[in-house]
């Protein structure tokens, strides 16, 4: 047992704030780190102390392991929580933290390494008797081998980055013609994102559901599973909406997948929070995809139904305490859904959006949790992940949870940056989601089902509203023009439209 007193959080945004909140509730002091772009960010303000790392680009700030260790030393932190992304699965960093005599709140470098290389992980899992998706046991570089392996596995195939995660470096090849060019693109994206361009092929399952199992291990050899999360609502191979329990899973399958997840974790002596990702096909057969050796973005839905604070468990386990519950003591109540608020234009190919947040209002009320790193005045830039916030609801059953999330999303007000809030409401109200019969291809396979619809009556309302709003803005402009500086030429065309005589 080692006592934790001060924790440095080597991350930014909502996850840094989320970790800081639990630390505060446990009476631990916290150290935030920040780039110049994040000086006024919520995680900086919520922390006990805050240390600047450098300019906005992640290579000069949040990926600077040396500066982070320096900050930990200067502030007297005794532990580092990595959040997810950035350095959370970087074994060199983890080793450096340990070498500096600090506690790394997460698994051992060995466990990360075992699962970090997707191909190596496949080998170990096969050996441990965990089912995996048919695919390659080695990375591929030779174009000839690429073709022959694709033929062996059978088209369509997924091209995946060996060091991948977060949907990056993934391509699907449906024909032999496009195989090589897609492989090249996946490899270059992986090289840019992870510093490792190695790729491999995996069978592409039809109508697959992406279902993952939360596990937790301690330093005393105990491993438990804390139920599944259904993550099949995806676009661009990234999750958008998650729920728990999965509408697909019954108690029997839940137990089987849970047992497989515990087996996988034990095979690598896993400690701390981890997630086993599975694909479940239409025959309800499941295959392990990969293990995420860190806290998962969507962990709050597990917290909502289990009542467990997973970050509190992380910090206790990192201090050497045993898990506070046995498998039998872990129970789930009700239904939870998480929606990821992205800065993106869902009506335009889900392109990431940038801008400055002018106005911000969050939903409130019963059963609604907001984990957000947003603030008014924040510039959403291409430097960081486009995920702005997570909205999590909990209710007594699935229908009530869907209704609650729809209500909550309608209360989200972000002005200045385009978000996917309205898109997610359309998904919630769609037949596939309502019925619970959806898979990872539902969104991109049927984009028209989730596109905005505009009735004639609505169109007339909008015309009326637009006229009244335009007139009001013009009047206010005229009123405020006296005391304010000249406006930029950008809006002059708009002003011209309302010059005297323009309207009859």
């Amino acid at each position, binding site marked *: 047992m080692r006592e934790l007193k001060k924790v440095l959080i080597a991350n930014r945004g909502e996850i840094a704030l989320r970790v800081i909140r639990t630390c505060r509730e446990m009476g631990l002091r916290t150290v935030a780190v920040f780039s110049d772009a994040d000086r006024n960010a919520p995680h900086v303000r919520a922390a006990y102390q805050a240390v600047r790392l450098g300019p906005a680009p992640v290579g000069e700030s949040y990926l600077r392991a040396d500066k982070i260790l320096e900050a930990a030393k200067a502030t007297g932190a005794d532990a580092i929580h990595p959040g997810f992304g950035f350095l959370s699965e970087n074994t060199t960093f983890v080793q450096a933290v340990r070498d500096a005599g600090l506690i790394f709140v997460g698994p051992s470098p060995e466990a990360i390494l075992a699962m970090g290389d997707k191909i190596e992980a496949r080998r170990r899992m096969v050996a441990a008797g965990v089912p995996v998706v048919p695919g390659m046991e080695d990375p591929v570089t030779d174009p000839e081998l690429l073709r022959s392996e694709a033929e062996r596995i059978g088209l369509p195939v997924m091209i995946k980055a060996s060091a991948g995660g977060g949907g*990056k470096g993934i391509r699907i090849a449906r024909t032999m013609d496009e195989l090589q060019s897609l492989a090249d*693109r996946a490899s*270059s*994206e992986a090289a*840019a*994102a992870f510093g490792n361009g190695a790729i491999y092929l995996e069978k592409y399952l039809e109508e697959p559901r992406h279902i993952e199992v939360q596990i937790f291990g301690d330093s005393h050899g105990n491993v438990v599973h804390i139920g599944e999360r259904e993550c099949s609502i995806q676009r*661009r191979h990234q999750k958008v909406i998650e729920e728990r329990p999965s509408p697909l899973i019954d108690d029997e399958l839940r137990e089987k997948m849970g047992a497989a997840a515990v087996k996988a974790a034990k095979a690598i002596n896993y400690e701390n929070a981890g997630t086993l990702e599975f694909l479940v096909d239409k025959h309800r057969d499941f295959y392990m995809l990969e293990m995420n050796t860190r806290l998962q973005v969507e962990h709050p839905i597990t917290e909502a139904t289990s009542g467990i604070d997973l970050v509190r468990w992380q910090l206790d386990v990192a201090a050497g305490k045993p898990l506070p519950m046995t498998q039998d003591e872990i129970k789930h109540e009700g239904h939870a859904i998480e929606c990821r608020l992205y800065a993106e*234009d869902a*009506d*335009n*190919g889900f*392109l*990431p*959006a*940038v801008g400055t947040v*002018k*106005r911000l209002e969050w939903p409130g009320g019963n059963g609604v949790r907001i984990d957000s790193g947003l603030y008014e005045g924040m510039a959403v*830039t*291409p430097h960081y*992940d*486009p995920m702005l916030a997570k909205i999590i609801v909990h209710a007594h059953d699935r229908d009530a949870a869907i209704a609650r999330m729809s209500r909550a*999303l*309608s209360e989200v*007000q972000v*002005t*200045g940056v*385009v978000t996917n*809030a*309205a898109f997610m*409401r359309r998904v919630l109200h769609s037949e596939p989601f309502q019925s619970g019969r959806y898979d990872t291809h539902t969104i991109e396979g049927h984009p028209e089902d989730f596109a*905005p619809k*505009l009735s004639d009556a609505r*169109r*007339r*309302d*909008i*015309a*009326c*509203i*637009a*006229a*009244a*709003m*335009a*007139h*009001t*803005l013009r009047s*206010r402009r005229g009123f*405020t023009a006296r005391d304010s500086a000249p406006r930029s030429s*950008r*809006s002059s*065309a*708009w002003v*011209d*439209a*309302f010059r005297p*005589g*323009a*309207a*009859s």
Partner: protein
Amino acid sequence: MKYHVLIDGEHHAVTLAADGSAWSVTMLDDDGAPSGKPVHIDIGTLREAHAYSLLVNQRSIDVAVEEQGSSLSMVIGGGRYKVDVLGEREYLAHSIKAEQGDGDKTVEAAMTGIVVDVLVAEGDAVTKGQTLFILEAMKMENEVKASVDGVVARVARSAGETVNLGDVVLEIE
């Protein structure tokens, strides 16, 4: 006051009149005669020039609004609408320009990022849906596709260049 409102290019004519402290808006038919009952709109300001609470015939509707050049970008009940509101003279000018047609179709960067690759060259014939260039932003590579058939008239940016939102990357005739 009479306004012409263009929603995705579709034309609506309306008249606007003060209705106490609020507005009364009436749709006009092709002959400029009122069609349908007036719509009563009360506007409450949540954040000047950004966010408003509207009561439209007592229906409560939040509107987020941004001026983009001569257009309004409005978010109403989650839907995002780009709308042009024009006076008579502007609408006339707009109509004439529309009749002449606008020859070139510019393809702009929909976000700030780095051009990873340009897959077409000047003079190439392209078809709708064809990938024109790849833009990297927020750690993702985004394929930008042609929205019309045509011929590439100009390639304004090349691989490796940083582009900002709205920058013209290439033009299709």
